[in-house]
């Protein structure tokens, strides 16, 4: 519903809802993957980061490590015959997780202007909708093969 509101409902600053200045749109409170935890615990990693309210190199390394570990789990899962029956949902979940990590933190979508998120997510929704409809059509009507 929040996405629908963002897309379709007037909330000030004329109908297209573009803020007059970027300062009008607040940044997220904790601008890094483990923001809330870091704020509270004053973890050493916070000191090692850029310390400017944005993700520093240490966070990028952490995200890269998580991506690498997920990829290793994917390949390990693929190699285990007993887990084959769960292969499709597992791979979809892992790839969605990796996709989200790269988009949110490497592409800075989580830290950037909401307009970029809106554009990208809208296109994603249209793409996934097309994908689903196409697969359903091919499943029920075939594609002339």
């Amino acid at each position, binding site marked *: 519903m929040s996405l629908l509101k963002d897309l379709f409902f007037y909330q000030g600053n004329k109908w297209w809802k573009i803020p007059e200045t970027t300062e009008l749109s607040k940044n997220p409170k904790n601008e890094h993957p483990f923001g809330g935890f870091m704020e509270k615990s004053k973890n050493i990693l916070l000191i090692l980061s850029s310390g400017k309210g944005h993700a520093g190199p240490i966070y990028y390394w952490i995200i890269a490590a998580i991506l690498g570990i997920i990829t290793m789990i994917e390949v390990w899962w693929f190699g285990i015959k007993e887990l084959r029956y769960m292969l499709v949902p597992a791979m979809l979940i892992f790839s969605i997780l990796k996709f989200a990590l790269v988009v949110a933190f490497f592409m800075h979508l989580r830290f950037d202007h909401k307009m970029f998120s809106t554009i990208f997510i809208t296109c994603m929704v249209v793409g996934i909708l097309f994908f689903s409809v196409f697969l359903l059509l091919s499943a029920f009507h075939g*594609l002339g*093969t």
Partner: protein
Amino acid sequence: MSTNVTIHHGEEINNSTGVSHKKLLMWTFLGSDVMFFGTFIATFMAYRNKSLNGPYPEDTLNIPITSVSTFVLLMSSLGIVLALHYLKEAKMGLAKFWLLLVIIMGIIFIGFQIYEFSHFAHMGMTPQVNLFGSTFFTLTSLHGAHVSLGILWLIFLLINEHRGNLNSGNAIDLEIAGLYWHFVDIVWIVIFALLYLITANDGVPPGSIPWIGGH
């Protein structure tokens, strides 16, 4: 329409929307590219297990090799984000180092793809041999073309950085290229899961001719 001058993340934005139009253009392009790749991935999945003759995925796909190239591409995403970080901090040496590393990793990825394609061709799997070959080569080649374009773009930026034309003041140019590079990475994340890991065990579909070609 009035014009606003704002400072966002150290970058001066002088336009009516208050956001960088270069970045807006890139995100719009990436949005369109999502749908572009979505159609090809959907086509691949729709034609999955519908080849009438071999070779089939279980005869051809080599997961260990593709896993290595996937890992290389994932790490190149780390490289580009570090290059951008150091460029914004005016640490030019580190920025150049990471940018060069990303280019090398991109070339390694393309090298893996060329090896894979030539190996497949040697085995008798070509784009015209069956539905699996057609859809597989179309999608992976398009992705490879995107990566190649990205490599050329990054080489251009590295030369500019070396000449002093790219610095912390116009780091947005590297950020835009970085967005593109991350995008080819996330497309590969999806391709690796759907085209390789999920499909690799697909054998002979019912009613199709078993493949007798040799390894």
